C-alpha cells in the first residue's frame, strides 16, 4: 500500500512536469497554430542554463531564476528572428523548420557545453526525505516539484482567465484575425506567448535537471511525451493538458512499476521483464491511441477552433 502510494506520488510528479511542457506547447499550438518540435530544445536549454548559472552563482535558486530569464529571452529572440516566419504556413513546413531548429540547438549545446553533459546539484537541505505517511519517506525535492508546479499551474490559470493578457490569449486562440482586426498588436502577443511557453519548458527542464543528468537530446523523448499530453488533452486546451498530463504521468509510472510484476504472474521471469519493459514504455502511447480512437479530437476539444 505504501509502495503504491509512493508510485502514485511519482506519477503525479512526472505528470506535473509534463504539464509544464505541454501547457507551453498547447498555447503555441492553439494560438499560433504552430507545431513546435523545438520545444524540447528549450527544455534542454533551461536545464543547461540552470546548471551553468548555479555553478557561477553558487546558488540553486539564483541559478534557476537566471536560467528562466535566459530561456525566455532566447526563445523570444528566436521567435522574432525565425519562428514568426513560419506562422500561417502548413504544418509540414513547421515540422521541417522546427526540426531544423532542433538539430541546430543540439549541435549548439554540444559546441558550447561539450558532449559530456552536466549535473546540477541541489542545495543540501533539499536532499532530505520527508515522512509523508507513517513509514513512508519521500524525497523532499520531489514534493517541492509537485508543489511548485501546482503553484505555476494556478498562476497560469489566473493569468489566462483573469488578466487582460490572458483575455487576449484566449481571444487569439478562438479567432486570430478578429483579434488583429480589433487593433491588438498580434505580433507582440505572439512573441510573448512564445516566450511564456519557452519559460514553462525551461522551468520544467531546470526542475528536472537535478534528478536526471543534463545532456544533449534530453528534450527529445520528453517532447514526444508532451505531444502525447497535448493531443490527449485536446489541442489548445490548457485544462485538457492538465488532466492529460496527470493521466499520462500516472499511466507511465503505473505501467513501469506494475506491468513486469503483473506479467510475471503468468510468464517466466525473463520474458516478463523484457515484455514488461516494452509494455511500460508503450503505456502512454497506448493510452493516447485509445483516447484518440474513442475521441478523435482529444478529451477537451478547444471550442471554436
Amino acid at each position, binding site marked *: 500500500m505504501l509502495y503504491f502510494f509512493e508510485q502514485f506520488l511519482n506519477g503525479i510528479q512526472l505528470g506535473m512536469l509534463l504539464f509544464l511542457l505541454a501547457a507551453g506547447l498547447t498555447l503555441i499550438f492553439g494560438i499560433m497554430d504552430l507545431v513546435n518540435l523545438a520545444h524540447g530544445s528549450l527544455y534542454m536549454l533551461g536545464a543547461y542554463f540552470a546548471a551553468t548559472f548555479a555553478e557561477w552563482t553558487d546558488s540553486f535558486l539564483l541559478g534557476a531564476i537566471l536560467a528562466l530569464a535566459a530561456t525566455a529571452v532566447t526563445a523570444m529572440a528566436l521567435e522574432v528572428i525565425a519562428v514568426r516566419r513560419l506562422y500561417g504556413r*502548413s504544418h*509540414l513546413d513547421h515540422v521541417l523548420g522546427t526540426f531544423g531548429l532542433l538539430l541546430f540547438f543540439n549541435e549548439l549545446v554540444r559546441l558550447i557545453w561539450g558532449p559530456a553533459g552536466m549535473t546540477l546539484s541541489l542545495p543540501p537541505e533539499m536532499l532530505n526525505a520527508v515522512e509523508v505517511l507513517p513509514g513512508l519517506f519521500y524525497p523532499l525535492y520531489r514534493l517541492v516539484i509537485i508543489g511548485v508546479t501546482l503553484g505555476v499551474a494556478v498562476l497560469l490559470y489566473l493569468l489566462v482567465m483573469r488578466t487582460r493578457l490572458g483575455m487576449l490569449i484566449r481571444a487569439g486562440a478562438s479567432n486570430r484575425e478578429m483579434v488583429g482586426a480589433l487593433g491588438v498588436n498580434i505580433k507582440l502577443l505572439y512573441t510573448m506567448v512564445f516566450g511564456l511557453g519557452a519559460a514553462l519548458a525551461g522551468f520544467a527542464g531546470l526542475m528536472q535537471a537535478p534528478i536526471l543528468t543534463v545532456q544533449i537530446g534530453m528534450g527529445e523523448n520528453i517532447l514526444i511525451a508532451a505531444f502525447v499530453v497535448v493531443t490527449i488533452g485536446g489541442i489548445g486546451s490548457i485544462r485538457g493538458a492538465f488532466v492529460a498530463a496527470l493521466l499520462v504521468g500516472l499511466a507511465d509510472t503505473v505501467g513501469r512499476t506494475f506491468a513486469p510484476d503483473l506479467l510475471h504472474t503468468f510468464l517466466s521471469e525473463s520474458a516478463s521483464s523484457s515484455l514488461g519493459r516494452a509494455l511500460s514504455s508503450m503505456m502512454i502511447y497506448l493510452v493516447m491511441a485509445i483516447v484518440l480512437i474513442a475521441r478523435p479530437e482529444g478529451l477537451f476539444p478547444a471550442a471554436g477552433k
Partner: protein
Amino acid sequence: MTVASKPPVKPGWSFGVITPRVGLNIAVIATLAAVPVYAALTGNTFALTLFTRVVILAIAALSLNLIMGFGGMVSFGHAAYLGIGGYAIGILAKEGIGSGFVQWPVAIGTAALYALVVGALSLRTRGVYFIMITLAFAQMIYYVAIGLDRYGGDDGLTIYHRSQFDGLIDLSNRTAFYYLCFGLLLVGIYLVWRIVNSRFGMVIQGARSNERRMRAIGFPTFRYRLVCFVIAGAMCGLAGALLANHTDFISPAMMHWTRSGDLIVMVVLGGMQAMFGPLIGALTFLILEEGLSRLTEYSNLILGPLLLVVAISIRGGIDGLITGRRGG
C-alpha cells in the same frame, strides 16, 4: 561521366518536353545509374555505400509522398515500416531462414498488415491528431523492438548473411545490390505514377482537397485512403528489407522518431506531389549531411538553419524552386 546537362530554358524557347524539371530528373537518374561505374573506376566504394543508402531511403520517402503528398495523410511514424521490414529480415535470418523468397514477402506483408491496423485506427482522426497518432503507433513499435531481448534489444542485431536468392542475384555483390535497389526505386516511381494517375489516385487526391465532397458524390473515402495507406506501408517495408541487407544490422534506432522526421524532411525538401521529389529530397538531404559532416564536426549548425530557411522561403521544395510552382 557524361550527364544530360540541364538546358537553360528562357522565355520564348524550350527544348520541347525538356523542361527544367525533366532535365533535372534525367540528370539525377543518369548520375545514379553511373555511380557504380564511378566507384569501380576510382575504387571509391564509399560512394557506392552512400548512394545505396540514398536510393533505399528514396524508396521510403517515395512511399511517404504517396500518402502525404498525394493523399494528405501526414504520417509522422513512417520509420516504423523501415524497422518492421528490417526486423523481419533480421529475425528470420537469426532463426535460420535465409531465403529471400521467404524473407522479403514476410517483410512486405508484415509492414502492410501493420499499416492496415494503424490506418484503420488512425484514419478517423484529422490534421495534427493524425500526425500524433501515427507517431504514437511508431513509438510503440520502437519500444517493442527495444524489448526484443532475443534480437538484441536496445543494441540491435547483426545480420551475418544477406537474403539468399538461389543464384538469381548475389546481394553481397555491392554493385548488383545497388542496381537492384535502383531498379526497385524506378519500378516504385512508375508504380506511384500509375497509382496517382489512375481513378483510384484521383479519388485519393480528391479526398485530400475535399473529403466531404468526395463522400457526397458517393466514394467511400475511408476505404480508399486505407488501401493507399497500406500500399505505402508495404512499399516502405520493402525499403526496410533493403536497408537491413545494406547495413547488415538492425536496431531500434532505425525507428527512432527523428528518423520519421528525416523522411518527412526528405519529402518536403524534394517537393511534395512531385514524382521525383522524394528521390531528389533524399539525395540532397543525405549528400548535404555527409558533405557538411566532412566540412565541420558541428555540421548540424549549418544543416539545421538551412532546413529552416527552406521551410520559410521555398514553397514546394526543390521541385517548386525549379518549376517556380507556387503554393504547397
